[in-house]
């Protein structure tokens, strides 16, 4: 009697959310699948047709797609650095030090204010001619006489990177083809975005999660290890790190999901995907295809490929993570 009554009440309470969910999530997901097998052009410059899987075939032959996938992966190289930094900061912060709230506030500030304003700030800092960063680098190069030193050793000149204007990168990836050439080795736009990303993320949500994780470690475990004469590194390796494994697992999974669909805002605000497409990620590519070239069908197909990649990689993470968690 009561149960039937509650089902009716539950439906009433769920109704607003269910309608919203149906109209803006469930419906669109199915609709997006349908769009992805069409050649839909938003301004109808081509006649609408169902083209089955032709978008996906075209995508496999789309060199830009592969180049931008590599860009996306490259920008994710900052993730492990940021995670390690967050862990390190959390461990240092979790010691009973004065002013922890002040430090936490300062470290969290970039995460909290991140968005267009911070990106415009970094764009100004990275400006090779007028930016503060290169002004500082050049000042150091001059005052240390580094240029003369390198020339005396028989090298070429040392100059500050041109950051957002440069296609160079730490791996030496070429611009037009998928290969590595020595001339491309250096610091460029992608590295600038990675550095900014680490600066934003290092004291952010991941650090807060690690702080909570560290404070949940039973002190008996640490005391027992200390009685056995374990040093600080041994305690970290054998107590802290395994105890934090679930936290690390969660952070890694979420970072992969975020990284794979990331890079849109940076590209739109700071670089417009350039120079020469080197900061175009998959999500920015989808945006340009859909809302600048109006190829809605192709863009929807791209978004499903991205979704599949996220799904597969998350599943792999689960498999690996669970093995890791039970050792």
């Amino acid at each position, binding site marked *: 009697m*009561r149960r039937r009554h509650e*089902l009716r*009440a*539950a*439906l009433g*309470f*769920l109704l*607003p959310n269910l309608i*919203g969910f149906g109209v803006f*999530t469930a*419906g*669109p*997901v199915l609709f*997006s699948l349908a*769009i992805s097998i069409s050649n839909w052009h938003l301004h109808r410059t081509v006649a609408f047709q169902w083209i089955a899987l032709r978008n996906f075939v075209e995508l496999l032959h789309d060199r830009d797609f592969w180049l931008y996938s590599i860009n996306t992966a490259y920008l994710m190289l900052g993730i492990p650095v940021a995670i390690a930094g967050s862990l390190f900061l959390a*461990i240092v*912060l979790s*010691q*009973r030090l004065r002013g922890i709230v002040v430090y*936490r*506030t300062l470290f*969290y*500030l970039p995460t*909290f*204010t*991140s*968005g*267009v*304003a*911070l990106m*415009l*700030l970094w764009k*100004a800092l990275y400006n090779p*001619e*007028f930016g*503060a960063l290169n*002004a500082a680098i050049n*000042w150091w190069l001059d005052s240390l006489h580094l240029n003369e030193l390198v020339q005396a050793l028989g090298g070429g000149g040392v100059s500050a990177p041109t950051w957002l204007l440069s296609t160079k990168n730490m791996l030496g990836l070429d611009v037009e083809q998928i290969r590595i050439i020595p001339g491309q080795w250096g610091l460029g736009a992608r590295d600038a975005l990675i550095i900014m990303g680490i600066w934003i993320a290092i004291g952010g949500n991941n650090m*807060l*999660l690690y702080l*909570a994780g*560290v404070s949940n*470690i039973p002190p008996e*475990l*640490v005391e027992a290890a200390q009685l056995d004469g374990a040093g*600080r590194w041994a*305690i970290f390796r054998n107590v802290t790190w395994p105890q934090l494994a679930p936290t690390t697992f*969660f952070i890694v999974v979420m970072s992969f999901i975020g990284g794979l*669909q990331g890079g*849109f805002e940076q590209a*739109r*605000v700071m670089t417009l995907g350039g120079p020469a497409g080197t900061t175009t990620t998959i999500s920015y590519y*989808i*945006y340009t295809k859909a*809302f600048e070239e109006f190829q*809605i069908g192709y863009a929807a197909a791209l*978004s499903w490929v*991205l*979704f599949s990649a*996220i799904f597969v990689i998350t599943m792999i993470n689960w498999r690996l993570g669970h093995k890791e968690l039970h050792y």
Partner: protein
Amino acid sequence: MRRAHPGTEEKRPGDFSAWWYRRGRFTASHVLLVLMAVTMLVPFMWMVLASFKSLQEVEQLNPIPSVWRFENYLNVFEQVSFARYYFNSIFIAAWVTFLQCLTSAMAAYAFARLQWRGRDTVFRLYLATLMIPGVVLMIPNYTLMVKLHLLDSYLGLIVPASFSAFGTFLLRQFMLTIPSALDEAAAIDGASPWQIFWDVIMPLSRAGLVTLGIFTFLGNYGSFFWPLILIKSEHLRTLPIGMLYFDTVYGRQTNLIMAASVMNIIPLVILFVAAQKHIVRGVQLGAVKG
């Protein structure tokens, strides 16, 4: 409240070298933290100082402006309708926050406090939708807005953002912790489910609602992708979109861009200082689903 990190309490009481070791480590940690804090702060300080400089001075290394040009800030308001952007961002974020808290709390109540068959299956389905990347939904939702004639309108910005599986999840976790004796007692007194929801559960979920409200407000205040594709008219631009076009048109005036950025960030800094406790807890709570 927070326990010390393992390894901080050395078990060598009375030993002078141990004291010295601890003291050294204490200092080392502080030096490290101060260095980190400075690295975090320097870009912000540069931004604030640059916003008061003349254009020529922005490009020079001297940190302090020789003349403090407060008129830079007035210039921003003269060149673009910055006040309008402020209003739009706050107006939209406030509506979305209100609606999302309401719809999420109602759904969370059904999932956490009412008994019905299939409840947990439906809830798991709900959670699974969190995996769908936003970019998959953007394209069909945009075409939907075209069909509904909601392009370039407040409604188009507010309504699609007013429903959240994450908010439902967050509030459900909160409501699960409220003792069930409370609604049973209210039911015996003849209260309807809506009365129980509104008079018993909602007041007790206040901490959860505040947390969700802050994150929703933040997310929508800084929202970029959706307004970017939806808004065409100048008077509907939100802060992020207004800043983007301001940079496109006046990008060489770094001092003005920085003044606009400072104004964009100030409400966030105030919000963070005021609600730090809720924010930290919210981040840590949101991860429990892992």
